[in-house]
C-alpha cells in the first residue's frame, strides 16, 4: 500500500498525474514538466513535499548529539538558521543528506528524504547520545513555494517581515492564518520558501497559496519538474547520485564535511579516504553528441567502462543534455572528455563546472 501525503486528495482532484516515488503516491506533473519548470525559473511554482520526513532532536544534549552524527557543524550556525549536510556510517557511506533547522541548541528539526524516513529515524535513535529523538514525519505537511516571485506571493499572505529571512534562514509565523515554519530554503536553485505546517492544515495552506499566487501566475508542480530543476543546479539526489555505498567526498560534498570540528561518525573513514586519495568523483557533464544520458548508463574511456551516470536529462532551461557521473579522478577536471554509452553507441561528453544553470539576476 503506497503512502500518501495530506495533499493527496487535492492532487487527484486537480487531475495531477500520480506516480509511485519511493513508496509514495505523488504527483509527477500537473500542466507538464517543461511548463512547470519554466514557471519556477521565471515566476513561481508550488510543490507538495510532505513526503519528506522530519526528525526532531530535543533536550540539553540535542545539538551536541546531532553534531556527532552530522558531517557539517551545527555549532557554526545561529538559532533560526538552517544547514545542509550528511549523516554517515562509520565507513563514511551516506545514510542520508539532510537539512537541519536549528530552532535552538536544544531543539533542532532534521528534514530527511522520503525514502529514508524509517532508516534515518532508526539510525538517529540508535545514536541519540542522550538527546530526545522524535519522528514527527507524519505530523508535518511541507510545501515548497519556489521562484523569483515567491517572496511577493508569500509577502501578501503573512505579517512576518520576509526581508530578514535570507537564504538558509527561517522563522515561525502565520501564513494565511496557519502557523508555519517559514524557511528560505529549497531544491530548485531559485529564491523561495519551504513552509512546514501541521499535516491537517496542509490542504488549506496549499489552497491559500494557489489562490494568493494567482496574480503572479502560480503553477502547482510535480516531482518531474522538481527533478529537472535540481539537476540543472547539480543538487544531488539521494538514491540516484549517492547512497550508503558512497561517501560525501566522492559525491562532491566535501564542503559540508567539517573534518576539523571534533569527532563524528564517519570522520575517521573520511580522513583515511582523503589521505589515500579518492578512486572516483561525482562530476557534472554535458553531452556534446546527440542523446540524453540516464541513470545507470556506463561512462566509457577508450571503449572501456570507467564510471557510471547517476542522473541525466535534457535541461529544459539550457536545451542541452546534462548529467552527473562517477568517474576516475583523472577524468574529473573541467574540460575532461569521455563517452556515455547510449543504447550501444558512444556519445561524447565533456566535464563542466556546476551548477549547469545560473540563476537570473533579479
Amino acid at each position, binding site marked *: 500500500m503506497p503512502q500518501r501525503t495530506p495533499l493527496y486528495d487535492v492532487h487527484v482532484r486537480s487531475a495531477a*498525474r500520480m506516480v509511485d516515488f519511493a513508496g509514495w503516491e505523488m504527483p*509527477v*506533473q500537473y500542466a*507538464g*514538466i*517543461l*511548463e512547470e*519548470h519554466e514557471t519556477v525559473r521565471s515566476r513561481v511554482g508550488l510543490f507538495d513535499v510532505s513526503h519528506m520526513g522530519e526528525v526532531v532532536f530535543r533536550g540539553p544534549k540535542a545539538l551536541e548529539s546531532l553534531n556527532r552524527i552530522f558531517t557539517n557543524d551545527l555549532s557554526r550556525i545561529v538559532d533560526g538558521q538552517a544547514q545542509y549536510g550528511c549523516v554517515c556510517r562509520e565507513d563514511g557511506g551516506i545514510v542520508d543528506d539532510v537539512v537541519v533547522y536549528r530552532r535552538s541548541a536544544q531543539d533542532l528539526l532534521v528534514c530527511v528524504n522520503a525514502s529514508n524516513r524509517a532508516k534515518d529515524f532508526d539510525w538517529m535513535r540508535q545514536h541519540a547520545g542522550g538527546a530526545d529523538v522524535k519522528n514527527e514525519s507524519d505530523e508535518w505537511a511541507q510545501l515548497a513555494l519556489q521562484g523569483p516571485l515567491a517572496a511577493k506571493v508569500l509577502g501578501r499572505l503573512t505579517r512576518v517581515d520576509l526581508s530578514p529571512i535570507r537564504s538558509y534562514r527561517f522563522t515561525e509565523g502565520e501564513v494565511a492564518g496557519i502557523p508555519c515554519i517559514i524557511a528560505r530554503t529549497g531544491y530548485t536553485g531559485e529564491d523561495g520558501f519551504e513552509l512546514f505546517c501541521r499535516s491537517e492544515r496542509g490542504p488549506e495552506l496549499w489552497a491559500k497559496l494557489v489562490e494568493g499566487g494567482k496574480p503572479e501566475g502560480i503553477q502547482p508542480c510535480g516531482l*518531474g519538474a522538481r*527533478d*529537472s530543476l535540481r539537476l540543472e543546479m547539480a543538487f544531488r539526489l539521494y538514491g540516484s547520485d549517492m547512497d550508503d555505498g558512497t561517501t560525501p567526498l566522492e559525491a562532491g560534498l566535501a564542503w559540508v564535511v567539517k573534518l576539523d570540528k571534533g569527532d563524528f561518525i564517519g570522520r575517521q573513514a573520511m580522513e583515511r579516504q582523503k589521505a589515500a586519495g579518492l578512486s572516483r568523483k561525482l562530476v557534472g557533464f554535458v553531452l556534446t553528441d*546527440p*542523446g*540524453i544520458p*540516464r541513470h545507470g548508463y556506463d561512462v566509457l574511456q577508450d571503449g572501456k567502462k570507467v564510471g557510471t551516470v547517476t542522473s541525466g*536529462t*535534457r535541461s*529544459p532551461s539550457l536545451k542541452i*543534455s546534462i548529467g552527473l557521473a562517477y568517474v576516475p579522478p583523472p577524468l574529473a577536471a573541467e574540460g575532461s572528455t569521455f563517452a556515455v554509452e547510449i*543504447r550501444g553507441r558512444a556519445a561524447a561528453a565533456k566535464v563542466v563546472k556546476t551548477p549547469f544553470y545560473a540563476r537570473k539576476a533579479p
Partner: protein
Amino acid sequence: MNFPEDLKYTRDHEWCRVKGNRAIVGITEYAQDQLGDIVYVELPDLGDQVKKGEAFGVVESTKAVSEIFSPVTGKVVEVNDPLADSPETINEDPYEEGWMIQVEMASPKEVQELLDSAGYAKFVAEEQE
C-alpha cells in the same frame, strides 16, 4: 481522446496509415499524453529494415526513455527528419506533422492483424482502468 478512423493501431500505442504498399507510422495521442513532453527522438536511417513488433526507435521525455515498435515489416523509405530538432511536434500533432517513418511493406497483409479505431479505443480504456 482522438483515434482517427482511417488509421490502424498496435497494442504498443503506434498507429499506421496505409497507402498502397506504404505504411506511415507514428505514436498515438494517448501515447504522447502518457509520455509527457517529448524532448528527444531517435529514428532509423533510410533503407533500414524494420520488423513488425520490434523496436525501430526511441522517444524520450524529460523523465523517461520509451521504445517505439513497428506495426509492420519492411524497408524504411522516408524519415521525418525535422522531428530531431522539434520533437515537441509529436505532442502537438501526433497523427499528421508528428509522423515518424514511412515503410515499404514486405507483406501488406500484416495490417489486417492491427486494431481498428474502435478496438484501440477499447484497449486504451481497459489499460486506464
